[in-house]
């Protein structure tokens, strides 16, 4: 976009060595036309800046009706609440069907993003299995471009979703054992990779350990962004696909009860994303594997990184969470837990 202005070059250049005269009416009235150098403070120190007005609504108060988010209160439940964990059972087969479709997703009020999706949402559905299950994922490509599904985890190289491009109208069934336990990802691995991922072909992939985790209120947060004007940078940031959604509809959890969040970063273009929780601390297990837990209120994830958070909220009320990159927070990646007794 080019900048237009009603002016002449000659009007602009001449005054460079001179200071602005803030109130033009005074110019000749008080004979102070000789403006005094570059001292801007002389006219701003004695009064409240013109830009500021007391009592204006700030961003931090953008909650509930105030928050510009798309849709109704339970629209994203299928992505937020994962399917239940099943107890370990040797030789069990878990079947999923994923269909790639082109969908115009409303990611912010009135903003439609021409997405490529698994099953019509970005992120796609949560895939869940218990360690040792045999996963059979049937993939149908109803989109307009060739796609694949590349799962993170340990599996045969020919089930990796890299070599078999599934053409539009085609299908492929991925079959492998679910391991290791942890939080993983799946995403399209067709080239150009950046395009296929940022258009929306990704999701969370939970493998539960054979020894089950303690019962908890479980949530899935897939952090992502949408580059709606295709300029190589995100215009909106979200958790689970809609900017400011959980600011508009805070997530209700119970005080003192265990809450487990499966957090994954599938943001394209930006190197890292993060989650910061207000007014409490949580335990963080990188990749959902191993015995190491960090006790913190802020975690950072590179593209493709993920981990498991556990917390028992100490107090009730609205607890904000957001990316600690302020820019992402103010472009949609912000929400609240409503902690109740």
């Amino acid at each position, binding site marked *: 976009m080019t900048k237009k202005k009603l002016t002449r070059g000659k009007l602009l250049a001449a005054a460079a060595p001179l200071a602005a005269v803030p109130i033009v*009416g005074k110019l000749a009235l008080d004979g102070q036309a000789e403006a005094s150098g570059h001292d801007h403070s002389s006219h701003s120190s004695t009064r409240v800046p013109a*830009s500021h007005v007391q009592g204006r609504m700030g961003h931090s108060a953008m909650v509930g009706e105030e928050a510009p988010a798309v849709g109704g209160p339970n629209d994203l439940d299928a992505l937020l609440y994962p399917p239940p964990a099943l107890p370990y059972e040797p030789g069990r087969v878990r079947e999923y069907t994923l269909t790639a479709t082109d969908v115009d997703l409303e990611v912010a009020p009135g903003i439609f993003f021409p997405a490529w999706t698994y099953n019509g949402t970005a992120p796609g559905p949560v895939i869940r299995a218990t360690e040792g299950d045999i996963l059979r994922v049937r993939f149908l490509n109803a989109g307009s471009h060739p796609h694949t599904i590349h799962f993170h985890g340990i599996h045969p190289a020919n089930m990796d979703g890299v070599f078999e491009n599934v053409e539009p109208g085609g299908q492929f069934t991925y079959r492998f054992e679910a391991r290791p336990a942890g939080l993983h990802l799946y995403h399209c691995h067709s080239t150009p990779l950046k395009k296929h991922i940022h258009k929306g072909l990704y999701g969370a992939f939970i493998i539960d350990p054979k020894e089950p985790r303690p019962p908890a209120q479980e949530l899935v947060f897939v952090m992502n962004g949408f580059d709606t004007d295709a300029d190589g940078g995100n215009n909106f940031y979200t958790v689970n696909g809609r900017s400011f959604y959980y600011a508009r509809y805070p997530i209700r959890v119970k005080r003192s009860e265990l809450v487990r969040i499966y957090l994954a970063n599938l943001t394209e273009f930006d190197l890292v994303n993060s989650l910061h929780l207000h007014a409490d601390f949580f335990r963080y297990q990188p990749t959902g594997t191993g015995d190491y837990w960090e006790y913190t209120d802020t975690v950072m994830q590179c593209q493709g990184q993920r981990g498991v958070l556990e917390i028992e909220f100490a107090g009730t009320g609205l607890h904000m969470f957001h990316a600690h990159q302020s820019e992402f927070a103010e472009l949609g990646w912000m929400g609240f837990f409503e902690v109740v007794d």
Partner: protein
Amino acid sequence: MEAGSATVRGRMGWRLWAVVPVLLLALAVGFVVTSSSSLVDLVGTNPPPADEFDIRRVEFSPGEIRITVRNPQRDDLTIANVNVDDAIVPFTVDGPTTLGRLRSSTIVVPFDWVEEDPITVGVTSSTGIETVEEIPAAIETPTPSVEGFLGYALIGALVGVLPVALGLLWLPALRHAGPEWLSAFMAFTAGLLSFLGVEALSESFQLQAALPSALGGTGLVLLGVALSFLGMTALAGRLSGGSAATGLALALLVAIGIGLHNLGEGLAIGASFALGELQLGTFLIVGFMIHNVTEGLGIATPVAKTRVTILTLAGLALVAGAPTILGTWIGGYTSSDVLGALFFAIAAGAAFQVVVEVGRYVARSAPGGLRSGYAIAGFLAGIATMFVTGILAG
């Protein structure tokens, strides 16, 4: 009687024939409209619309930013999201949210902006395309007030009326000049007006080029130039009773030509200052004063051998200088870029017409006519003087 009605019928027949091409054109248009997509399909695919807004004006007031946007394209454009400094902000729209072709709305954003900091505003369409405007320094936009109104008037008077009036004071000296020197000064006036005309024309083209293509045809400039040129020609004819303009009539024409130019000049000063793009410093105002003092000389020369009252001279100074004041008001408090382009085109047309009038006068009255050394040197000196004093103002 019968022969008479046959003539009438014949005349009607010709008129009907005149309608035939219009009807056929309507049919052809109907065909193209109904088959437009299949017609395009024969040769390829249309590119998608740009879906970019034309951000016309960004105004700052305490706790608030107002963004005026226009839809420059054929397809509708919907305001769906507004960013300030890369942050989504709540907003309301004063006007329609979905803009038809060339329609405008003003977006109102409650925002605690920081004085003198650079700031960017972004308006995103429903298709996700963000149009960004960078403001180099946020300052409060002047709102109409008695103080501001008088301030602009004062500045307009300083850069417009005063220098012209001062220039008119050369009149007593001019009365003693010989005919060669008078013709040189008249040619000087023509050079000065040529300079102003070219400058106004260039400014008009620049403003026109920045308009959305639907509004920004070069025809707009030509229309303005032709309108004022022909209008001034008619006026010159009336003032001088059909013969070539001389004396007071010529002085008035010169004053009008200069006045129209000064209207544009005031417009540019007012608009640039209001948009925070211009520092109205002492140097700039002094520069304009020196630049414009020669305009007074141009008006005085035609009446060098005519008796004029001081009141008449004051009137001429007002005709040439007062439009600057009007211009600063229009530029400072309104935002019509179409009007801006048109004003400058009108100024150019008027200036060129007066050059013609002055040229005729010199051709007839100067010893040696247009080819005399005095006339040629005077013309070139007029251009050179404007150029050199213009450096002071820019």
